[in-house]
């Protein structure tokens, strides 16, 4: 299965974005500055933004889910129990896994942003999707939860596309992409991608300068490379 973008173009009042490239199975990271168009690209790939030109083909993809940057915009249930049910997720299991036991009758909008993000992501990950688009999934999660999310992402099959500016705690990825000046660029696979990638995480940069290039961008790749620093 794969998703292919052929000069797919989105135009808003003040800017436009053009994207070409093929996203095969595996984990893809799309980075870019604030306001560069990451969320718009996620909407385009989910089929929720009308293209002004070009096309997006989704070969053999039968199920797709977009996790929005702001979980509060994706809430449909009045209570946590209803919210889990709306995702087709088992409420007891989800609330147990997210530390929200005993709050099944609370409003999702009464949760802190981190708690709501955890509930939202646990609901999303309770089902398998061929294509999973995650817009800023790490935002508001604490460091422990970010690490758990990385594991969940790495264990998935299908195509996972992460749109993020996170630079500290990341999963091992198959391919790295970047949006700049209204254009999507394929930086390639790590570690070769680092040369073309403008958003190389500081830890990767520092290790490269010390002569120990990490093979990928996950925390365990960083730690492994840190152990190999010459001298």
């Amino acid at each position, binding site marked *: 299965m794969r998703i292919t973008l052929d000069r797919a173009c989105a135009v808003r009042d003040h800017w436009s974005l053009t994207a070409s490239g093929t996203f095969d199975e595996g984990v893809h990271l799309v980075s870019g500055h604030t306001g560069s168009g990451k969320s718009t690209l996620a909407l385009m790939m989910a089929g929720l933004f009308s293209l002004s030109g070009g096309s997006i083909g989704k070969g053999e993809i039968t199920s797709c889910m977009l996790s929005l940057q*702001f979980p509060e915009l994706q809430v449909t249930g009045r209570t946590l129990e209803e919210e889990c049910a709306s995702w087709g997720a088992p409420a007891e299991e989800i609330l147990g896994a997210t530390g929200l036991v005993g709050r099944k009758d609370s409003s999702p909008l009464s949760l802190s942003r981190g708690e709501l993000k955890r509930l939202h992501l646990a609901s999303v990950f309770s089902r398998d999707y061929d294509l999973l688009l995650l817009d800023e999934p790490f935002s508001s999660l604490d460091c422990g939860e970010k690490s758990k999310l990385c594991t969940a992402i790495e264990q998935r099959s299908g195509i996972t596309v992460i749109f993020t500016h996170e630079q500290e*705690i990341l999963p091992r990825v198959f391919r790295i992409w970047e949006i700049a000046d209204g254009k999507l660029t394929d930086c390639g696979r790590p570690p070769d991608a680092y040369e073309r990638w403008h958003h190389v995480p500081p830890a990767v940069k520092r290790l490269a300068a010390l002569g120990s290039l990490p093979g990928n961008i996950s925390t365990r790749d960083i730690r492994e490379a840190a152990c190999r620093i010459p001298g």
Partner: protein
Amino acid sequence: MIAIDSLRFRNLVIDSLTIRPGITSIIGPNGSGKTTFLRICAGLELPHHGTVSIDDATPRTTEIGWVNEFPDRNILFARVNDEIASPLRFRHDTPCDAIDAEVRACAEAMHIAHLINREVRELSGGEKVLVSLAAALVHHPEVLLLDEYDSHLDALLAEKVDQVIRASGARYVIRCTQQMTTAAESDHLLFFDSGRVTHAGTPRDVFRFLEGTAFYPVLWECG
């Protein structure tokens, strides 16, 4: 000094804590009481028990700048210009041309001068945070309280914003963050766990206790 004494509110239990002028970062797990603590410092909540004093005044009599962790909950007005101007307009003591000049200067400092005539609903999440920060800074608060404002900003922008915050003249900046590199660059650091401040001190002091956990800065593990 910000002095907290015998504070009890919901799950928050802080017997004694002082916060010195400068940038204080708060880190800790989701649900550990960080936002609740900021809301009490802002005067948005009154503690069930105990006191918070900011240079011997109460939070509600102190000029506070506040940025909510939900970007959309910061915004009152449709246009960026009106949003940033609102704290000054609500005072009813500043001439319109002086307000316009303050708004322009603040937007330029925050690198959002190009957004000034845009509708807020058209903005990205990060841009909304920048607008909220500008609105929080435009009236030159003594205390700036920022709840995970940086979770919507890329690293370069977060660094630029950091410079603006440091130059703002706010005597106290207290910010919750989940970016440990940002936390490491603060004057003071507090670690919250289950409603209590379990570690307080310089970033180096606090992170010493967090070595081996997910909260230890990845960058510090790289030599």
